[in-house]
Structures are given as C-alpha cells and as structure tokens.
C-alpha cells in the first residue's frame, strides 16, 4: 500500500489500528508501525495529524523495545541453562536435541 496516496486521516487511522492491535501480544505489528510510519512521522514536513502519528510511532517503538528485551533475556537464559534444569527443562521444550545435553 502506498501511503502517499492516502489522505492524512486515513494514515492516522491506520497507525492507531496497528498500535492498538499490537497489544494483543503482536510486537511485529509495532515493528511494522515504526518502520512504515517513520518517514511520515519524523521526516515529512508537518501537517495536522503528524503529532498524533508521531506519538503512536514513539509508543510502538517503546513497546517493541520492551518485547525485544524480554524475549532476548528469556531466550538467552533458556538456551544457556536448559540442560541444567533437567526435568523442568525437558517439559517446557518442544524439540529436545539428540545426543547433546
């Protein structure tokens, strides 16, 4: 979808929709929001809806950052310590590697 052909109100509506639905454990929607609307929010010359679009983009970026931190921490801990957790580690794994602990 080419954003340049949309009127500003629709751009704002799209940005808000992506922001709100991203709360349903969908951080990739926030990533899309940030990447897609970055040019609209910060590079383009100012227009009436730009302030709200900017706030939505900033909040999406913040949410995205939180998700990335949480997931990275959990993934690092799991990959590092799963072998030591023995039974618990096996029960929360979908695929257990063969031949290595």
């Amino acid at each position, binding site marked *: 979808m080419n954003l340049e052909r949309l009127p500003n109100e629709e751009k704002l509506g799209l940005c808000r929709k992506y922001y709100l639905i991203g709360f349903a454990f969908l951080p990739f929607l926030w990533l899309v929001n940030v990447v897609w609307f970055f040019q609209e929010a910060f590079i383009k010359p100012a227009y009436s809806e730009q302030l709200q679009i900017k706030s939505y983009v900033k909040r999406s970026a913040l949410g995205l950052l939180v998700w990335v931190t949480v997931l990275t921490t959990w993934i690092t801990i799991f990959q590092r310590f799963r072998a030591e957790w023995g039974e618990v580690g096996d029960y929360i794994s979908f695929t*257990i590697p063969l*031949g290595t602990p």
Partner: protein
Amino acid sequence: MCCISSFYVFVTWSQIFTKPPCAFILFAYFFKIFFYFSGVGCNSVEKKIYVHLNYTFPCVRLLNATHQIGCQSSLSGNVGVLHELESEENLDWVLTSGPNPPYMVILESRLFTRSIMMKLKEGSGRVAGVVVVAPNINPPEGFSPHTACPNDNSGVYTENYDPTLAHCNATVWNPLGNGLAYEEFDFPIFSVKDDNDTRVIRQCYQDHNRRVNGSNPQFPLCAMQLRSSMSAVTNTATCKRRNDINFSLTPDRVCDELGDFNIWASSRPMNTTTKGHKEFESVVIAAARMDSRSFFFDIAPGAESTASGIVTLLAAAHALRRATQEAPPNRTILYTFFQGETFDYIGSSRMVYDMENNQFPLDLDNIHSVLEVSQVGLHSDSKLWLHSDPVSRKNSSVKEEVEKLVNGLKSASAGLNVSVDEPDVSQPLPPSSFQRFLLARPIPGVVIGNYRSSFTNRYYESMYDNAEYLNVSYPENMTSEEQLEHFPETVKTLTEVATLVARALYVQAGGNETQLANITADPQIVNQMLYSFLVRANNSWLQQLVPTDFTNHLADRPTNFYVGVIQYFSEPTTLVQYMLANMTGSVVNVTQEDCQKQREDKDDDQSKHLYTYMWVQGAAPPNSTEREGFCVRSTVHRSIAVSPAFELHEYTTSNYSTWTESVWKPITGRIFLVASHDLEQLRPDFFFFFFFISVRLTVSLKILID
C-alpha cells in the same frame, strides 16, 4: 554449484526477455535436461569420491543411573585427516604440532592402551576420531577394557556388609583391567579388521598424508568420516524421560534397556504355573553366566569368561541325566544360566526379585545351596579353586553346609585329572551371580574358578577372549563335519571339570555316592558345544537340535555374547535353551501338532504346567534329504532378565542395574580426499560474486529499459 549459478543467470536473463515467453520456457527445458544428465552422473561420481568401509564395529554409548560411557560423533559424522600413529611420542603431531587438525588417528592394537586413549581424550578439539585395527593374533601382554574390580557396586560386598572386603580391598580380581570400556569419549572409535579395507586406508595414507623429507604433507589429504551419532545423553533417568515425552513435536526413542532372558531347567519336573514358595521342595542351584562384552559393540567372543562356564554346566547336566532319572536325589537340581551379568547382574537380580515377589515357581526359602561355575577353561596346573563368602560363613549352619559342599567337590575330584583347593578363608567371592542371592539371604554356596586371587584370564571381557585364547582351534582345511570329530586339548580338560561338577551336584543334592562312578561327561558333546559357541553355530550337530524356523538365525561366525537390548534376542540365550533341552530332556512320541500345543495328546492339559515341548528338526536319514523331526520334552523354561529398576520405574536407584543402550543413527565410515580450506572457501566466494554481478546487471538493464 556451477549448475545452480548458471541456472540463476538463465532465469535472470530470461526475466528480461519476458516477451517472447517461449524463450523462457525453452531455457527452462534446456536447464531441466542439463540437470537430469548431471543428476544421473552424480551417482557414479559419488563412488569415485568416497570409499565406504564395510566391516566396522563402533563403540556405542551406554548409560546407567549416574553416568554415560562410550563414544559419540556429530550428527553427520566426524571428519578428520588420517594419521597413522607410530608410537606414543608421535601423539605430539596429533595433539599439538600437526598443521591440519582435526585428525583421525589410526592405532595398531598394541597402541590401544589407556595412556594413549586418555591423552587423545584430552586433546579432543584436534582429535576427530580413532580407528583401531584389530589384529589377527592376540596381543601377548593381555588387554582388558573392563574395570579392575568388576561389578563393584552391585554385588554383596558393600560397606555395610564388610568394609574390609568392599571395593576389592582384599584382592583385585582383574588386575589387567584398564577401565577403558567405562570411560566417556566425545569422538567416535571404530574397530576395523586387518583386511582389504584397512589396506585401502593405509595405501591412501601412504600416498597423500605422509611427511616427506621433514616437510608437511600438502593438500589434497586423505580424510575419513566416521558416523556413530548417539541420541541419548547424561544418564538413564534423562533418556527414559525423553522417551516418554509425548507432546514434543518429534517423539524419538532415545534409549532402550539392556536385557534378555534367563534359561533354567530342573532335574525333576515341578509345577511352573504356581508361583511362590513350594512346600517340600529343596533346590540346589547350579549357575553359570551367559553373557560377555568388549569395548566395541556386538563383538563379545567371551571364550574363557563365558563359554567355558556354559559348556561345563551343560555337559554336567547331560552327565546327570540318567542318574537323576533312575536314582533321583532328594533335592532338585536347578540348572540356571543368567543373562546380562556383565552389566551389574541383570539376570540374577531379576530372578532374586521375582523369587521375593512370588513371580517365580520357587522362592528363596526353597534354595538349599548354590554352586556356580565361573571361568574354568584354562589350566596351567589343572587346579580349580573353590571360592566362598567369609561373612556368611560366620553363621555356623551356613559354614557347615559350605564345608559339606567343599568336601563333596574334593571327594568328587579324586580319580579325575583336576584337583581342587580352597583359597584363603578371608578372601571374598569373585564377581558372580551367587552374590545377588547372598544379598537377599545367607545361603551356602561355592563358586568354582581356575583362579586363586585374581583372574588368570588375560583378556577378560575383551575382543581377544576368543577361541584362539582357549587353544580351541580346528584345522582350516577340514570341512565342518570333520572339524567336529577333531578334539582340541581344552575339550579334555573341560570334560574333566564337567564330570567334577556333575558328581558334586549329585552328592550335594543328596544322591547316593555309589552312583558317582556312572556319572561322566561326554567329550564329544563338549567338543560340539565348544565348536558351536566359539567357531560356528551353523554346524550339522546344532542344526539337528533346533526347530526349522530357527536355522537361519544360526551364525557362521563365533557367537556374540553381548546381552543387547530387550527388543533384540541375544544369540546365546536360544542356543543354550535348545542345547539344555536336548541335554536334560527326553524324546517323546508325540505328533508335531500336539508338541507345538504343549500337550501329549488331545485331552492332556496337565503336562503344560510341568514340561516344555519343542519340535526340533532332527537329522536326515542316510538315504533321504528330508529331516525327520521329533518332539523333545524337557523342563527348560525362560524367565525374563530385565532389571527390576525398569519394572519399578526407579531409574536412579543404586540397588539394581540401570544400564541402557542409546539409540543411534545409521553407522557408517568412509574415506575420501579433502582439499585445503582456501580452495573450499573459493567456491562459495565465487558463487556469491557471480550472484551479485548478475543481480546488478539485471537491475541496471531494467533501469535502462524503463
């Protein structure tokens, strides 16, 4: 690589020329034909690159409650540059100074020692694997990969029983044991026979990998890939848990428990359907073990450690057949062959457990005494030693019974070529199945062996414990028939031992001493059994004793005594079963149909509680080729030999054996030439370069057209 990049160029160019579309289709067809040709060519190209190794024996991973032992390779196989080790000092090339690690080390059997293997284990980053060349003659200095104190933690000698006798404090039974089979290695170790394959390997090494005039060998070098990827890790509890997880995406079996069946027969029939204690039944157990192992998987010739005991006990059972039928003694003799004893007494611990839980036709109170036949093959001085347990002898009634048994053995040896003696009174029992019975009750018993205070067997539980070690050899140019008529020296000595055991058992069971002169073992039978176990099971004598559908299980090589996992039958178990049926049973005139239905005639439903009926194929009469089968009625039964730990699902217990064997991916080995890393890196570099050039060209052409 080249065809993929050229395909890409074709596709990108054809995208530019989208009109006419037939040009693209034309290119696609040409490409497909080109690919098919190269696909057909790929098969024979593989044969030109790789030489597959055919007869390899890997070392596999085994696990118990606390450890994992054995070897492991990466999932697709470990690749390493070949290096023939000349001496222990030459290890320096492999571990530090060689320029092309990782190395695949080829060892002669004289270099397969603990010190070299431990050093290789430390340098694991540079060692990709080890290949041991199995020699055609046994190494004279002896070799035993088992531990110095076999079955240390599973016998009766623990700190509670007697701390001075635990952990081989009193005497070390296997002094040559280097414990290699119980170490863990993270690279594959294979054994190859010294034959054509090995010649190819050595030739490849000579041609490409040898240092010439002190300069390093140049690429391309000869490399080997060994694949023995084991799925199980850590210990039995972990691998059993991973077997049972059922919400995983890929439920794989990772390990299987070791086990098989014990074989037992009674000299007098008893009701086997009723389990638990039997009133008025007093039993003398005559025990022997049926299994062995070596460092490598599926090689376990076990001549002195296992076959000597089995053959002796079978021959004794045969010698006793007439006496126990015509002048039956007071007590019943129970001939028992235990499977899995190498791995912490799987068979005997299970039988004791079954007896304690009323799962066996007898129970522990029915046992009067135990006589076990341990390693009896070699005699340097024709002397046998009678081992007994000093701790239980402190009880006066047990002491009296043991002394009676020993005296029975001593008097039975009079007039025979073997003499018996007792070792030091404070010496403990050697590793034997009798220890598991002692763990449950203080039963009087004796273990017969040809060793006084440490094994005379120089190759205990190794691949060298074979027919050659027992001096059982048959001239090569004889046919199988003729070989069965020729008696090696060992046969005569084993026959004497079998006679001794038979007479002692008869006296111990309360038989009349006047009958003893009639009890003698038959050297012909001993010879045939030894031949079947140590040389070839597929021989004319054994073919007569087995049913028709079993004949293709008879191997043309020495018996493999490894107990194996419960899913696969172990070779010696069925051989012993049919031999014992023939030795102790009798031929009955019963039709084949009735025989296979375990009855004497249509209305008989009592015999199946007492006897086992087997229809065996017999021999062909002289003027015909059809074999005449017959029905053998015997008291031979199988009892399951799986560790009680797996019944009780206690995988971390130290009371029972917890040994399991890992499941593995296909085991292969192959040799090929490898190029230097720079050359290998050149191809993907070239591909990516080509790829980006064509993308750039496409983009710029597109811009031009637009």
